[in-house]
């Protein structure tokens, strides 16, 4: 049984992940701060992290009027993990195949490549989730096997 930390706020994705990890021990955090606090307190308790990219800063009801959505909240968590040396194997789990930024769009593949270089200590890879396809399961299996090796 794996101990999995999931930082994710999308209901659909959460439901699918909960089903996928039904035999594992999962901890769900739906915000940047929730995730960072869990990592800060006991990142060593987990086997790996499933990380969403766009997440709110705090749990619902705790944010400012606009919602404090962090478009690259997942990346900020990766940066915190590197800076604070919370080296927990991490899999990015996203629905976006393209990420719009101020300096043009970055594709899923480019971002994955960039993270592999920048966070080589703990970043394992990325899974592209699509609501109407199940290919992501295969990819996630593959990355989890990689972690276990």
């Amino acid at each position: 049984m794996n101990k999995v930390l999931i930082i994710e706020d999308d209901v659909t994705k959460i439901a699918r992940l909960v089903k996928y990890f039904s035999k594992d021990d999962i901890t769900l955090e739906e915000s940047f701060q929730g995730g960072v606090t869990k990592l800060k307190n006991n990142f060593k308790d987990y086997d790996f992290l499933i990380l969403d990219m766009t997440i709110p800063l705090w749990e619902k009801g705790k944010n400012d009027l606009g919602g404090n959505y962090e478009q690259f909240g997942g990346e900020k968590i990766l940066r915190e993990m590197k800076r604070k040396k919370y080296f927990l194997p991490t899999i990015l789990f996203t629905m976006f195949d393209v990420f719009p930024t101020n300096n043009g769009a970055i594709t899923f593949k480019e971002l994955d490549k960039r993270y592999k270089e920048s966070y080589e200590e703990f970043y394992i890879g990325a899974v592209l989730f699509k609501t109407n396809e199940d290919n992501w399961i295969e990819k996630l299996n593959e990355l989890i096997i990689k972690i276990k090796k």
Partner: protein
Amino acid sequence: MNYRKKVSEILRNRATTLPQKIDQIKRNVNSGQFKEALSLNPSFKQFLYKTPYFKSIEDIQLKEPFTFSEDLKIEFRWLTNILENYFGEINEFIKLKNHFETQLILDKYDEARLIVEEIESKFGISLWSIEANLLLEDNINGTEANWNLLSNYLTKIKNPIYEFIINSSSKRVESKMNFESFLNQFQNDIDTINADGMIEDFFVFKNFNYPYYEYSYKNLESVYYVANTLSIVDQYLILIDAIIYNIHNVSKYDRFYQVFLKKAKTIIHNDGRLINLYNLVNDKGDYDKANDNELFLNCSNSYYKGLFKKTLELSTEGLKENPLEFEFYEFYCKSLINLESDFIEIGISEGVDKILFSVFQIFRFENDEKEHFDFLLTIALKYMNTSFGKQVFSLLSEIEANNNRHYIRGLFSSSYTTCKFLFFHHTRENIIKNLEPVRDNLSFQVAEYKLGLNTNLKGLISNDYRQNKTFEAIRYFSKKEYAKVIGLLENEPKLDSVNYYKERKVSLLFSAYLHQNLIGKALKLYGLVFFDENFSSRKINTSLLFTKIKECKNKQDFEAHIELPIVMSLHSKEFDLYEIYDDFLFANDIEDLKDLDIKSFVHRFGLRKTIYFLENVSIIDTIKYSSDYGSISEVEEDRVMVLKILIKLNKGSKLEYEKEINEILRINSVRKVLKEVDEGRLYIDVDNLKKNQIKKFKDDFKRFKEIEQSSSVQKLISFNSSNKQNWDTLLSFSNTEVNSFNSAEYLAFKNIYLESRENFLFSKEHGLDSCLSTRIRHGALKNHLRSVFEKLNLVTSKLKSEYKDNEVWEQQLNNNFVENIRVQKALKSFSAEIDEYTIFIVDKLIQIRTEKSIDKEYGIFEFLTNDEVLLDYYMRNKANFDSTEKIIDMLLVSLVNHTLITLQEDIVSRFNGEIRQVFQSIIDKYIQEIRGYNLPPDCELIPNLIKSGTEIQKELEVISNWFYLNTTDSKSLLSIKTVIDASIVLTNGINPNFPIQPIVKCNIEPFGVYSSLIFVFNIFLNNIICHSKLRPEETCINITIEQYEDSFAKVSFRNNLKKGHDYSLNFNRLQKVKDNWNDHTNIDRSNKEDKSGFDKIKRILLYETYSKTDKFDFSISEDELSIDLFFKITKTNSNE
């Protein structure tokens, strides 16, 4: 083909006109043979040279530029070929122009005016002469006179190119026009005219060539081309400016320009720039000494020898002889600085002394230099088309270590040969050889020494110690011997005694540290400079330092320096700054801002740095990322704490800090109001309902009791009012005999129950349906749902029955006609599906369903019952029905519990379940469809669709919480201003593509109101958005709160209107509202979704906020609509 043959061919073609023939020559003959080709037929020259000048304003026209070749050599040669015929006249013009500029700088405006008149009489009206007249007018009679003259020109000149340029000239020479402001205005003007690349290049180059601008034609082919249309004098001035620009840019055309310059300088000897240019670009070791000036060279030599008294005398003499030579200004001021003297006026003219004083102040490098820097920028702007203005701008560029084209342009604008020309040796090796005849001057030798070139100079160059050490440091720096620079300057405290040398020292050290990657030292030095009250330097390039810090992988050496977060705050924010801030706190053993021991912090870092850090680094946007905070409110609490510390540390800025605290409190209040509103959207005043029902059912209850007593005895069942009543579930558990339904006592109870329920659900004052209607169905729900998709530009509104095109994607796909059509079609269909489903939710789902309302079959507020359920309930509880109060209380508790628990659970689960899934399936369908299109990789359409899936989830979750039923009035009184602020935030939230910024003025002490008033204001603001027919940027809204008579406050909503639009329908509607304001008989209409929402407003004012008065007013004029509400004044709750 030989040019003669080509010209013969062109001439033989009788079908072409003369201009067409000339155009063919431009297009077909080699540019090196233009002159010869055009000489072959006298009619060519007659045409080309027929109007070199425009005698009067009325004569002004655009001369024929022929076809644009986009080729530098063709355009340059075409233009110079024409100009060559007028070198003599141009020389005369330049002489008069120099004379004019001299008189201008000496404040001799009458003389200057005469010269312009002479120029106009000899060389006609030109853009140059028009600007000279505007400048004179502004200097003599003020800016209004400048505008009048401009207007005069514009009424006579009907030519867009001239109009644009003259308009720019007029603005640029305005006495009070500052650089920044002109830049913004010019940018707006250029953007507005929407000219093509060629014309835009020309306009920018001619009117404002100081800021960085990427020309469409890199070698200014466009500028040479458009210049053809102007008079000879304008053509020449633009040509020389363009050559200087190009020479700065690249050296590959040097030989090409050399031919023209050699020819021109022999005749146009009044233009010193031609000689400067020739001496630089010629590759023959040729040197023209016409610009050698003994006084100037002596002055330079004595300055670099450290003979400052002598330099002062020589520069004074130089200024008197040539007040247009800006280097004399520099020598004069630098001498005074070196002599550690106060400023001494020279007395040539007030204008010259004013400029000198500012130059002097700039060289003092004190903290008040900005005022002088800005003044000199204005001078540079005003005199942009003179050599003097360009030299001033050159100095300012040098002060900012910006040795770019402006610096270079200033050098070429010098009247004399200056040692600064050696600066070009990096790009043009021949310059050393060319300048051979003057290199024995000390100033040239010092320049070579400073540039790190081979030189015989050794040991003491200058008699002045500080100057000497500075030369040495500059030489090391030029030779890239940075360690030596550092070694030398770190041990030279003597250079700190005068700011002029301190500035050189600090800037060299700073750059050397960066070259050596000594980031910690660079940070410390930056801190010393930034917080020095008596010193300033513009050369400390924090962007470079910032980049170095970002690139640095190991920051441990300098993480604890307070300068690190300070520098980073100048270039970064939010999470980027947070990382540095957090590392800094950690490195200094500060775990949390709350633990900040301010005394020891100030002791460690100094007061000024502490204040800066607290003001600019420890801000909400930075500290919010700290995991110490569980919510935005906690972050705000700490920011308020920081601001309170700042008030103690820096009393001078107390007002600013208090303003920020108040703003935080205001935002907090707005947030609380919106939260209260969201949580209390469903409110039923059960107490009032009970009172009314008790009164109403008194007789019914009496009857019920009488019937009951005469009936047979039944088994009693106790009733626990806290038991949850699930009407739906009860329906299926009936075991009572059918005939019991007819018993008289049961029917008497049933009658009370049904009426009580009817009242609970549909009472116009306190009923559930009124609440659903005013707070949820009326716009709110639909707008909240739609805003999710609007914000992401996925839906458009309808025009008549057709959805409009989506401009955002149309723009992104403007090069892809086919895909745009497909996207537009898909998004229209997407908009329709989203709207259709949203309308279904509002009109069908958010409805009350009872057994009586067959048409509400989808209503999720199910209050269904039947005899089985009711009888069961009656049988179980009848023993407790001992008073009207008791029975009403039990029924209402039961209805409330059903709404509060059973229904709410169901609604939450439907909003987060099936409703979410319907939206998601619509979104998924379109994602799949659009993925099949051939969209460019950076198109954000699919990412936005994906985002909308998560965002609609969040919105549905928020909305599902609206349905929590409040039964007690726990609301506090809030300030009217807070409620208005909150309603603006609410309105903007649900209209993301129609942002409004009302100006709110409260002219009386704010009074207390209930938060529900937010819905009233929201209806007003939504009406403005919907009915004013204006675009968001055109909409101006003013909300004023003021005293009315003795005991009323008047709240006025005023908005502008669209010119020419017929608002008579709105007028009629408002008149009707006014006429019926005190008629409450139709208040139940508020449950119907009326268009303007005034019935709802009346209901909210009457039953929810208890604030309706009998006054209402409105006015509508041609350009403004105003609506006034009146409130009895209530004091604000002291807790608010």
